[in-house]
């Protein structure tokens, strides 16, 4: 029996007003009209309600019924999520394609999890054991390497009356029966539901201490992100936001990747779908798709579902975090999400703040980024959610509201630079505007890896890059010849550093991923060249001599080396400078 909660009274775009809405609940998931379009009640006033509809409302007319479901917009959580692609409200796109063909039409309800798939369940709890929200009652393998931990949903606690034996079950089969303190019995399956706009509870937040290793040199060495941290990637069109997101999604050392394509191109999602299954995770040896969940709400899909897609992604991430995994969420792009907020706010005739964005934009941005963090979960594991949000500022101007507000809530900033992108210097992360506040948190980790010099090396090279900028201003006015050799050598070293270290080829088999150890060695060698070179100049060598050294070519190509014979390269560098010394001492 369907519960009618209202009658459509007015339709304008994705916002529908309804009357006779007394029995509707705030944020309740509803089905609108005879077609059953998915919507959510976002405002109640008197007997009128405002519903945000997640599908195209063409043809919807006043007088049609609104049915309630009695629960808020939720995600379905359970084994079988990995490797799949969903739209913004967690409808499985592959199943939608089988049902409706190439184009997405409306009103189809398909459960997110495949009901027929069998999972091999191993119980962990025993009869009469007291459990509470988060307690792991059993495990099932998911994919080739993940252990999916089945947990008691948050908020429930009590005594186990029944636990299924080890064996194969469907996700919706009862695997445990729990009696709470009031004597009510709850049947537990492998599936749980969670309202997307609410953060899942944890025991406590932990200090961030480990980097999310991405294998991208400019990130790991210069502007690292911690596991559980937040970062924004702003950049005008064509500066490589999506390319950076893809590179991190492919090579970072998270256990699970949630990739949210929010208001972006359809072909980009197709690209991920085509490429990820073919790529092998260097750590586990399995396909990258096995650890990835895609949320695709492309730019031509309804805007209100775009608004929801961010929260859908965050809820999935938190679910895997609660199982004790490190999850990285890529949101591409949060600007499109903010625009969806603006459009819906406009349709509801709310008073706008900056550039037409609603006044609650900063609150929403903060809420989203606060769902990141390293946590001790209810089950006692350590897990983390890191959020990597792309921002698309209009005109590449970082002073616009979304970039500015995002900057307040993230602790790491990878600013993409138009000049670098035009010169095809990729990744085009500019070293002057970018920053990371995680340096101190991560120092201990680098020491553990035997790379205690990291902090000081990093500081040296950033300092050189700063000096380069000032020198380039002089060069612009008087030409490079006017500079003394000691300063020209700074330009030389910076240019070498950019080519040999910062530029990274995402399509090269070797170069696309650089281990922490290799990064540290590369940086060390480049700084040795700087040290020895400046010493040589102070003793009379010229920049031209230094530039012509054969070993410079080797430094340039070291990023393509897959061996780890760093000592021999270091020796070569040393010998080259020794020979050079003989040269200028003779003269």
């Amino acid at each position, binding site marked *: 029996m369907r519960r009618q909660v209202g009658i459509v*009274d*007015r*339709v*304008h*775009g994705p916002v529908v*007003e309804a009357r006779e809405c007394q029995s509707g609940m705030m944020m309740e998931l509803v089905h609108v*009209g005879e*077609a059953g379009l998915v919507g959510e009640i976002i405002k109640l006033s008197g007997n009128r309600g405002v519903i945000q509809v997640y599908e195209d*409302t*063409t*043809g*919807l*007319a*006043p*007088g*049609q019924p609104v049915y309630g479901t009695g629960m808020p917009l939720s995600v379905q959580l359970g084994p079988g999520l990995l490797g799949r*692609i969903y739209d913004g409200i967690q409808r499985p796109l*592959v199943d939608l*394609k089988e049902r409706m*063909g*190439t*184009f*997405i*039409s409306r009103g189809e309800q398909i459960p997110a999890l495949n009901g027929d798939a069998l999972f091999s369940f191993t119980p962990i709890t025993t009869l009469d054991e007291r459990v509470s929200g988060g307690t792991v009652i059993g495990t099932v393998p998911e994919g080739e390497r993940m252990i999916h931990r089945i947990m008691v949903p948050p908020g429930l606690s009590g005594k186990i009356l029944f636990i299924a034996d080890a064996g194969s079950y469907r996700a919706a089969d009862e695997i445990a029966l729990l009696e709470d303190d009031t004597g009510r019995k709850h049947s537990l399956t492998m599936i749980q539901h969670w309202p997307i706009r609410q953060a899942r509870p944890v025991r406590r937040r932990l200090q961030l201490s480990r980097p999310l290793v991405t294998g991208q040199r400019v990130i790991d060495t210069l502007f690292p992100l911690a596991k559980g941290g937040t970062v924004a990637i702003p950049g*005008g*069109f*064509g500066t490589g936001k999506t390319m950076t997101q893809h590179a991190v999604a492919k090579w970072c050392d998270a256990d699970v990747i949630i990739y949210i*394509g929010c*208001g972006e*191109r*359809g*072909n980009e*999602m*197709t*690209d991920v*779908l*085509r490429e990820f299954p073919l790529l092998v995770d260097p750590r586990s040896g399995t396909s990258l798709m096995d650890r990835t969940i895609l949320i695709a709400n*492309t*730019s*031509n899909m309804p*805007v209100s579902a775009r608004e929801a897609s961010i929260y859908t992604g965050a809820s999935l991430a938190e679910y895997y975090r609660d199982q004790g995994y490190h999850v990285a969420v890529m949101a591409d792009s949060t600007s*499109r999400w903010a*625009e*969806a907020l*603006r*459009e819906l706010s*406009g349709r509801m005739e709310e008073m*706008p703040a900056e*550039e*037409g964005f609603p006044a609650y934009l900063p609150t929403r941005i903060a809420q989203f980024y606060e769902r990141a963090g390293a946590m001790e979960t209810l089950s006692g594991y350590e897990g983390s959610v890191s959020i990597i949000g792309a921002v698309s500022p*209009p*005109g590449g101007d970082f002073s616009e509201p979304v970039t500015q507000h995002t900057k307040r809530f993230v602790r790491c900033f990878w600013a993409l630079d138009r000049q670098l992108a*035009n*010169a*095809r210097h990729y990744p085009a992360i500019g070293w002057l505007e970018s920053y990371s506040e995680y340096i101190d948190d991560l120092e201990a980790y680098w020491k553990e890896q035997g790379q205690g010099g990291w902090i000081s090396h990093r500081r040296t090279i950033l300092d050189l890059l700063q000096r380069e900028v000032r020198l380039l201003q002089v060069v*612009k*006015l*008087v030409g490079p010849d006017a500079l003394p050799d000691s300063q020209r050598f700074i330009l030389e070293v910076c240019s070498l550093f950019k080519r040999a270290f910062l530029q990274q080829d995402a*399509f090269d088999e070797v170069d696309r991923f650089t281990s922490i150890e290799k990064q540290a060695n590369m940086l060390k060698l480049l700084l040795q060249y700087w040290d020895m070179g400046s010493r040589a100049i102070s003793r009379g060598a010229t920049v031209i001599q230094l530039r012509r050294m054969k070993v410079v070519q080797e430094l*340039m190509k070291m990023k393509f080396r897959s061996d780890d014979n760093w000592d021999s390269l270091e020796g070569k560098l040393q010998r080259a400078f020794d020979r050079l010394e003989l040269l200028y001492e003779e003269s």
Partner: protein
Amino acid sequence: MKNPDAALMKYREYLGIDGIDGPLVVVRKTHPVGFRELAEIRDQSGTIRLGQVLDTSRDAVLLQMFHDTSGLTLPSSRVRFLGEPLTVGVTREMLGRVFNGLGQPIDGGPRPVGVREADVNGLPVNPTARVYPRNYIQTGVSVIDGMNTLIRGQKLPIFSGSGLPHNELAVQITRQAQTAEGNDNFAVIFAAMGVKHDVARYVIRSFEESGVMDRVALFLSLAGDPSIERLITPRAALTAAEYLAYDQGMHVLVLMTDMSNYCESLREISTVRGEIPSRKGYPGYLYSDLAELYERSGMVETSEGSITQLPMLTMPNDDISHPIPDLTGYITEGQIVFDRELHGRNIYPPVAALPSLSRLMKDGIGEKMTRGDHPHLAGQLFSSYSYVKDIRNLASVIGEEELTPIDKTYMEFGSFFEGSFVKQRMDENRTMEQTLELGWEALRILPVEELHRMSEEELETYL
């Protein structure tokens, strides 16, 4: 929304309307009318004007008219609601015909009988049903083929300025475009929004001269036509394109000019509706609206065909950060940017190499597709030319005489690149081999140690 009476409702006629404000019309006390439903208003003389429902409620329906509302009176206008959104009857017979901005024939011929009626708003393609485009199109234009390769199924706009030869380039590409397998199952859809009559005539004549007119369908909403009609023009054109590509398996090239006029119409209607503007008075949903158009390109699993879009837009005041080019660039898969300075130096096509970009190029070039050295060659040309720009700035301050010898070589490279690689005649059709060879010729000007993007083998083979 199957209501038993719905089929009959389209015959119900309301006499009298309750308000007109520019292109917006209010009708009160109607039966429940669906959102986006098509409506027709007949005036005293019997002329029919079409509009669509923007806002519907129990008390009133707000219509956005596609035709001019001048001459309408409140009491004597008759309104009918047709129960479905605006559709175009799609068929292969649309090729060789000329339509107005709403998809109605204006060449004197009868309305082609559609195989089916398709909603002009289209539906989003399921991302899992798409095929990632990777077959390149040889346009015969070096700066495109060599450095911004066009891929079948791509949406690659031309960012131009007023007075720059974007129509000429579009026509040249249409005439010369060919794919590796030389498939001739192609069609061209030309959507003109607010362009001048002589521009439309130039384009049509060039189609006639190259003998492809029977493979072209034209959707014309010229400068003199009501601006609101332009909101439908690209949608009608793309609906036809989708039918030809996805139902008929044809390779469709869609030329859309000028997207700036389309956006202006959108701003106009948004202002009349009293919506809160975002940048420069354009509505906040400009991005989503443009995406609805641009995303209707690509390839799908169920068909051999493809839709390649070449939208053209004039950047107001040559400003690439203006909302129209800016939002377009965020949606499309790259952009070809024109430079007025190159045009002034008589370089055709005046494509600014550095800000131009083809995002799909990386998967469509290289070994087995164009040539193994192509990716590195393009990267090297970009990088060296980018350095030329820096040196030119320096030279403008300290004078060319003061440059170092190596910098002077770069200046020489720069002029060869612009004068011989980029520049070509409007009827010059270069093969991919010729383009790549020209690229190497430019690189030979530079000392070999400057070519740090090329591999040893490539240098050995081609230098």
